[in-house]
């Protein structure tokens, strides 16, 4: 080494230093990448494109649906508060106990990738039933997300929507943005039973929403039961003969302790269906269309307008309050609690404030 010229020795030392520095740099870069990958990156996006979400709940059964990205098998299990396990087949749980909260998990590849809970319908009103109602919500904006959080916080057994589930139209490509993402927290625990507004029926009479939500009827017209509660959903309007005939037939069925009707457009005085609802002792009619919250009596029927789900009032000149009603221009949710003695209606706005409270009977105002 001593024979080497001084400049050569310096160059050699510099090369050695640079080599060691490069090695150190490689180690630092590798360490940063490893740390980033293991501790900074979030979990993978998951195997589900949509859901799983609850599509139906009865006294002894419940069903969930989902859209998965791959072909991996989904293990769907539920556990009751007492620890009784249930395994779903094709997304359906059977043999459940009435009035019981079940916690479900959907596992893919040996790990839970989604979870939620649902409450099976009780046989009687000895156990109170709570549900939520919204309308005119499917806009995918911040208000809808806020309303979705307020809905989920109430832990409803099911959710009723009074139509306009997707703006501007209910195309299949828009449903994740307008329904499934904003309402994901509540849909993991409660079925969404929707009727249809103008924006839904614009495309194939709402076929995309019917299919996506696994609704039991087309055009937003069908009847569901949740234990002692019957809900008759009429669709866009209650002003035509077919709606009248359908309501007359469904409301004549025996068994329910309390009945609700859901329709998109609010009832107008003079509609013969108002008398039918009174005769059949409908507890309340829930409607949307008008982007306000309103509570009023019409022909002896209690009627709520809950077009407050997120789309917003637009121009206030076209969103005028109905004369003679309790009316608010706001975003929010109508929470309904049914017990053996009556029904409590609470309107909670998107900030969580209670803006209206009404106590009604099981058979009307």
């Amino acid at each position: 080494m001593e024979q080497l010229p001084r400049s050569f020795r310096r160059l050699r030392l510099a090369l050695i230093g640079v080599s060691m520095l490069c090695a150190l740099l490689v180690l630092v870069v590798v360490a940063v990448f490893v740390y980033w990958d293991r501790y900074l990156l979030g979990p993978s996006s998951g195997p589900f494109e949509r859901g799983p979400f609850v599509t139906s709940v009865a006294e002894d059964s419940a069903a969930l649906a989902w859209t998965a990205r791959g072909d991996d098998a989904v293990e769907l299990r539920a556990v009751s508060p007492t620890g009784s396990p249930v395994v779903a087949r094709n997304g359906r749980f059977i043999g459940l106990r009435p009035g019981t909260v079940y916690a479900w998990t959907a596992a893919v590849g040996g790990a839970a990738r989604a979870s939620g809970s649902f409450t099976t319908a009780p046989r009687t009103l000895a156990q109170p039933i709570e549900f939520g109602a919204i309308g005119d919500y499917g806009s995918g904006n911040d208000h809808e997300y806020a309303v979705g959080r307020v809905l989920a916080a109430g832990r409803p057994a099911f959710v009723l929507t009074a139509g306009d589930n997707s703006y501007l139209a209910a195309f299949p490509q828009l449903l994740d943005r307008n329904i499934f993402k904003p309402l994901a927290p509540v849909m993991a625990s409660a079925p969404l039973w929707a009727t249809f507004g103008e924006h839904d029926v614009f495309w194939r009479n709402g076929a995309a929403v019917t299919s996506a939500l696994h609704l039991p009827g087309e055009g937003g017209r069908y009847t569901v039961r949740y234990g002692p509660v019957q809900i008759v959903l009429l669709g866009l309007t209650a002003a035509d003969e077919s709606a009248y005939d359908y309501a007359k037939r469904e409301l004549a069925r025996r068994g329910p302790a309390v009945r609700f009707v859901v329709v998109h457009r609010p009832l107008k005085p003079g509609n013969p269906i108002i008398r039918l609802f009174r005769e059949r002792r409908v507890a309340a009619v829930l409607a949307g269309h008008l982007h306000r919250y309103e509570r009023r009596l019409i022909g002896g029927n209690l009627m709520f307008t809950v077009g407050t789900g997120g789309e917003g009032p637009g121009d206030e000149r076209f969103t005028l309050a109905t004369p003679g009603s309790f009316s608010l221009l706001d975003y929010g949710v109508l929470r309904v609690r049914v017990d053996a003695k009556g029904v409590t209606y609470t309107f909670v706005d998107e900030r969580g404030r209670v803006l209206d409270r009404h106590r009604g009977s099981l058979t009307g105002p």
Partner: protein
Amino acid sequence: MTILRGISVAAALGALAAAILVGEPEVFGLLWLFAVVLFIVGAGSIAADAFPLRSRLALTCSVLTPVAALVMVVAGFARVGPLLAVVPALVVTCAPVVYRPKT
């Protein structure tokens, strides 16, 4: 023996001592530390032995030193025994010291 070679041999012997004295899995943490030293010093040794090139064996061993360091790092993940993981590092660091070709 140059300073860099001395550090490499010391690190390899340290790793051997750790492999003998420390139990699993704690030993792999120590092997990581010695591997980092070997990786950096090994890079310096490559430059030292290549410029100027005096012994091909020394250069080859220097090139293999970072590889041996990587073997020590992955030993824990690959479920290779710590003693076995240290052997490549010992060989590549000690060989140029033990075998000195006549020049």
